[in-house]
């Protein structure tokens, strides 16, 4: 009599203290820095390797005081669509929102960030990222500049900075 296989998954509780949520516990390569996959083809051999990138000379990372480990939880009442320098850190160079396991943002702030980024794009504060279209795709369908788009737009926010 064939018995079904028992599969047990040992779930380890996530650690939120550092703000970085690592879902993987096994690494095939040494974990030092951010990496970039490069594929090199020689005759009858392809080499795929993760190349380390140089450390960027940015400012040191700010301390996260919120108990959730979320970098945006402290600003949940003051974050507006005008804080462009803050918002650009949560975007990939393609203009997409980085996922939560990369940035460490909590669920509610990721939901708010999505709405705030939409406001910031449509107010014209962030650059207009347009994806590279597939080959043989007609670009005229995507280039709809309506007559009312050229005018200035603002959105409601209840931050203390705004006098009214």
């Amino acid at each position, binding site marked *: 009599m064939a018995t079904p296989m028992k599969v047990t998954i040992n779930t380890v509780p996530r650690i939120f203290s550092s703000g970085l949520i690592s879902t993987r516990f096994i690494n095939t390569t040494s974990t030092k820095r951010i990496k970039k996959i490069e594929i090199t083809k020689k005759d009858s051999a392809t080499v795929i390797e993760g190349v380390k990138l140089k450390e960027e000379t940015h400012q040191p990372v700010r301390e996260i005081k919120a108990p959730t480990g979320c970098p945006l939880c402290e600003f949940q009442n003051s974050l507006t669509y005008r804080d462009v320098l803050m918002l650009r850190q*949560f975007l990939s160079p393609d203009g997409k929102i980085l996922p939560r396991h990369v940035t460490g943002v909590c669920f509610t702030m990721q939901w708010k960030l999505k709405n705030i980024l939409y406001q910031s794009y449509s107010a014209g504060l962030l650059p207009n990222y347009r994806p590279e279209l597939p080959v043989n795709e007609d670009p005229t369908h995507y280039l709809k500049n309506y007559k*009312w788009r050229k005018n200035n*737009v603002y959105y409601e926010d209840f931050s203390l900075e705004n006098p009214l």
Partner: protein
Amino acid sequence: MAHNRVMQWAVLARTWWIFDANQQCPFRSAYRITTYLQGLHKPVYHRHGDVGDHVVVFNTKHIAMRGDFWRTYKHFHHTRYAGGFSRASAYRVHEEDPTRILERACHNRLSGLDNRRTLMKRLHLFPDKDIPENILENVSGQIQQVQVVPKKLEDYTQEDIDSFPQLFKMPEDYDIDSYKRENRLEPDQHTSKAWRLK
């Protein structure tokens, strides 16, 4: 005292104010402008006393409206003949006359007043920075703006972007190019209908 006499002249004189409408909501700025037009900011204000001031507004071409209001906000008009009703959305009105929306906002704000027509004559609207000198030489005060003027990401220098503190650190084993999609030879199935029907 001579000093008191000068103070009395200053109270009864018509002062000229200037207001920059760049990136400002027309309805909120009308709320602030009409207080100066009526003289509500003065302690000697009375309805039947003519103590209002002049207000010069410039950059009215660059006003900002909330959300979808450029498309949805309408100006109505009726000629009182049959079939004389007409309407126009805000962006169409703004194309024809860039001072029109702020003028109507102030006009509606002063509704119910007998002296509305004289108050509106003391409001001077200009679409650009260009103000004639005979008007600009009278100006002696500035009205505070209603909203914060936002700054684009393109206007920041690279030093400002680098000196801003980082909010989080990337995980150590993260592929940077993972967001990218290969530029396919065939059209995307989400964008092209012909591909989906195949």
